[in-house]
């Protein structure tokens, strides 16, 4: 799974979101996603992160060991 594919998966799951992926070690494992999505409005930070995690269900089980997450409305 490439960084590009992770970005596309989040965007597909949260239509209209802006997703920036940072891969500081360039290893595709310890990545950080910054997700801006209007659908986060009125949701707690835990709920916002859950919404992003839900788009990456399978990836989080296997390849992506560490996903840093920052969400914005």
């Amino acid at each position, binding site marked *: 799974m490439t960084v590009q594919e992770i970005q596309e998966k989040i965007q597909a799951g949260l239509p209209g979101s802006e997703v920036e992926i940072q891969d500081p070690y360039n290893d595709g494992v*310890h990545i950080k996603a910054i997700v801006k999505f209007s659908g986060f409005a009125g949701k707690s*930070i*835990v709920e916002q*992160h*859950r919404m992003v*995690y839900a788009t990456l*269900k399978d990836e*989080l*089980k296997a390849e992506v060991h*560490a*996903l*840093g*997450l*920052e969400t914005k409305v």
Partner: protein
Amino acid sequence: MDKELQDKIQGLIGSKKIFLFMKGTPDAPMCGFSAGVTNVLRSLGADYNSFNVLSDMNVREGIKEFANWPTIPQLYIDGEFVGGHDIVVEMARSGELQKKIGA
């Protein structure tokens, strides 16, 4: 999840006001995000219990379902799921975590 496992997880969470599921121990964390959360808790002087999920595969998988949260560490305060690494760091920065733990 079977009842026995659920009871075990519930029992751990209820054993202390602040409870952390992590990889490794506070003195020897086995993952960068677990280390990050223990650093935050230490900097606040928080009194907490922890459980090393690497020592128990059932708990390691069970808490993901329990909290509807796919990653570890997981922090609980007053029996309530607070969040993982990023949320804990953010809450400490904003001062919200200090309020929650009464630091």
